[in-house]
């Protein structure tokens, strides 16, 4: 068993009386690509927001190791009036006292890692959806993030761009040892990239297994989800 970097213990979170997370427990180990699957509205994004402290649990406990965390939002969440370069440099400029040369080096390296070196001077509105996500990813890793959280990284993207994002997630994990938590409802992608897959339903973990075991799992909710996802692809 590896070192746990994220752990949820019986976490409950309610919004206006409705339990979005209802006793959620799981742990993510260092170096994993951990995927959280589930239909829309089952608390996947809320789970990520607990990890970075944007949400506090009503009860239960969220433990996160002392590590640099990056977050890729569904929309990329780039600042509209800043260029790609300025967006990626933002966390370094605003929160560190690094010399300009070092900031330049790190930003160039992050942009190169996501293949956006040529688009550094462009504004977010001039980028495609996939490029915005890649720029968001460059910003997430520019501080040498040890954990990166991905919120629906391939939603709304064409298959070719989705494959690029997938390769980036896997590449960051293998080359830089980044622990990744990916929230998605794309079962096929989850099966390709994950170390383990967790299915959430009604705010609870239904199953948490390696991809091949997950695909064969006899649990009713898992079988239903896998069946529905396969039917969708056909």
């Amino acid at each position, binding site marked *: 068993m590896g070192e746990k970097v994220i752990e949820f213990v019986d976490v409950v979170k309610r919004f206006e009386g409705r339990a979005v997370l209802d006793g959620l427990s799981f742990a993510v180990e260092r170096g994993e690509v951990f995927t959280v699957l589930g239909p829309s509205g089952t608390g996947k994004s809320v789970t990520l*927001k607990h990890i*970075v402290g*944007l949400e506090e649990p009503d009860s239960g406990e969220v433990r996160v190791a002392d590590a640099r965390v990056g977050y890729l939002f*569904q*929309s990329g969440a780039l*600042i509209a009036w800043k260029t790609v370069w300025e967006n990626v440099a933002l*966390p370094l400029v*605003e*929160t560190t006292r690094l010399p300009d040369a070092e900031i330049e080096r790190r930003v160039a390296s992050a942009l190169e890692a996501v293949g956006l070196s040529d688009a550094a001077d462009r504004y977010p509105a001039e980028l495609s959806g996939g490029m915005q996500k890649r720029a968001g990813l460059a*910003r997430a890793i520019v501080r040498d993030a040890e954990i990166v959280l991905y919120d629906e990284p391939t939603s709304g993207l064409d298959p070719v761009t989705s494959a690029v994002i997938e390769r980036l997630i896997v590449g960051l994990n293998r080359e830089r040892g980044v622990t990744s938590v990916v929230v998605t409802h794309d079962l096929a992608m989850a099966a390709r990239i994950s170390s383990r897959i967790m299915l959430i339903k009604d705010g609870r973990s239904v199953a948490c297994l390696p991809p091949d075991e997950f695909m064969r799992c006899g649990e009713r909710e898992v079988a239903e989800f896998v069946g529905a996802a396969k039917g969708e692809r056909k």
Partner: protein
Amino acid sequence: MTRFPKFITSIGYAGIVLVQSVGYFPSVFLRSDGRRDLFRQLYATGIRTLPVVTVVSIFMGMILALQVGLELARFNQENYLGAAVMLTLLREMAAFCCGICMAACVGSAIAAEIGTMKVNDEIDALRIMGIPPVRFLAAPRILALLLMSPVVAFYCCIMGTIGGGIVGATQLNVDFGQFMSSALWMAADKDLFVGIAKAAVFGVLVGDVSFCEGMGASLGATGVGKATQRAVIVSFLAILISGYMISRAFY
């Protein structure tokens, strides 16, 4: 848990944002990124509002001159038209006109921009990066309004006086030179300083209210629209209430 009425928590939040923003003012000047944002906001607050402010203030001065001039003419006191227009502009109307233009042009834009950032997760992204949204977004905007509102109010005063002088000369037989000398004769330092201070307060209130309303936006485009509408309404109310209180304190 005690639940406070929403407007009390809103006032409390606006107060906290204002205090924090003032605390971040030095960092706006010290950081190169902050200075760039400040200049961007100064441009949006000052230069881009000038066309609207010019038209509004000239017509306001014309209306003032016409209404006051017709009454003064009944008592053969048209000579004091310039003084009456200037005093009204300096003490109240220039700052008020500036505040209303700022709320309509700048406040609405701030609320829409911040609201859009909120619903697009950009505010959450800033927090995750360890960048306080108040420092990054509110402080440069409020500082720009604080610096630019008095300038715009003074400009309103000049344009309004010119508008009043034109009406005096063309419709009330008051010589333009006489109108201006009467206006300058009556203008007192206190009126100028109170008017400018009032404009600065209005500017800060517009920036603070608009930022807070933008931060309260939710539910996509509809939420941003509602936040923008609330920002303008609350800014108008804040301008009227604080305007009365400042006048009461000084006169």
